[in-house]
């Protein structure tokens, strides 16, 4: 039965992909080759759509694949399979942490983990900035250093940064406004 199979395939994907949505990609390629449920072209289309719609990428990809294979129930079943392992593991970790949170060494480890966490989120932000604010392919093609920068995108990012720090306001408003500005300026 296709729903059970979908659930099982995405359960495995959710269980073995460590570290976020993009980590699920190799598993989806492997699933494509083994089951033939969708084509390689479907996969690249899926990555493009997942990147260009709201929602965590891993969930978008599971929805897309499940829906392509078996319609709306397929999408739901694939997402359920994908989130199941993380759901159970995080509850177990929460209970462990809650029991041992007063332990000195747990506190010491968390002291190091928090610093690492800030660094890794910054790295993820820098990777987005590289794609959004710089144009590395144009620079390597022309060799002209000025081709490296996307001035409009940089101006927009700096404006958002300053306004957000000064005014606060909900991030949603900045995202909506920036999307609109992107369309108007043809960023």
């Amino acid at each position: 039965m296709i729903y059970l199979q979908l659930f099982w395939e995405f359960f495995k994907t959710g269980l073995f992909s460590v570290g976020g949505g993009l980590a699920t990609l190799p598993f989806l390629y492997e699933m494509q080759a083994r089951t033939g449920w969708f084509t390689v072209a479907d996969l690249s289309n899926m990555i493009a759509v997942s990147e260009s719609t709201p929602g965590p990428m891993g969930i978008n990809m599971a929805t897309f694949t499940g829906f392509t294979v078996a319609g709306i129930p397929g999408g739901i079943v694939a997402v359920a399979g994908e989130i199941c392992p993380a759901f159970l593991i995080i509850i177990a970790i929460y209970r462990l942490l809650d029991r041992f949170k007063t332990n000195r060494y747990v506190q010491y480890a968390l002291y190091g983990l928090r610093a690492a966490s800030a660094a890794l989120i910054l790295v993820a932000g820098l990777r987005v900035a590289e794609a959004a604010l710089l144009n590395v392919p144009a620079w390597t093609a022309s060799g002209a250093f000025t081709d490296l920068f996307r001035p409009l995108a940089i101006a927009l990012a700096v404006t958002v940064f300053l306004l957000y720090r000064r005014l606060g306001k909900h991030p949603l408003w900045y995202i909506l406004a920036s999307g609109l500005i992107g369309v108007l300026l043809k960023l």
Partner: protein
Amino acid sequence: MKLIPDLFLTFAKVGVTTFGGGYAMLPVLQREVVESKGWATEEELADIYAIGQCTPGVIAVNVSTYIGYKKAHVPGAVAATFGVVFPSLVIIILITALIRNFSEIEWVRHALAGIRACVCALVFSSVIKLARKAIPDLAAFLVFAAVLILSLFTDVSNVVWVVAAGAAGVMIRTLSSLRKKKGGDGT
């Protein structure tokens, strides 16, 4: 509002404003979960992100399950996790069913270019906020800097750096508490 529906709606809001991977939801999480609802502290967010790097599954699911469980056990975890994936399910199914080549539409590409510039500005701002709590002293800053550089310039999995940072935390704090004790005996 009742807690369970509130968890669902809040995390649906987080899901719908996430463009990219789990790190992209940090600004909205800080705003909704830390500042406006008080369901978690900045430190806890940093903890969950570090845990999410080393555990299976999508980071968005790790975060929502953790906070949902903390507030209202299994029903809370289900509500928050279902909330965070709900927008993806609806949006991806609609787009896949109705619009062909969504990601190649010109205004979609322009809007996304604007949104990406915005998201990296918001993420940088959020990292600064997080760092104030996650990096309390010089030793923690050194851990942060080491993880930043190693993760940027090597291809080793983030899991390794997170585990190493946890170990470094235990060593640093154990040493400094030993030194304090020694200083105390001397006087």
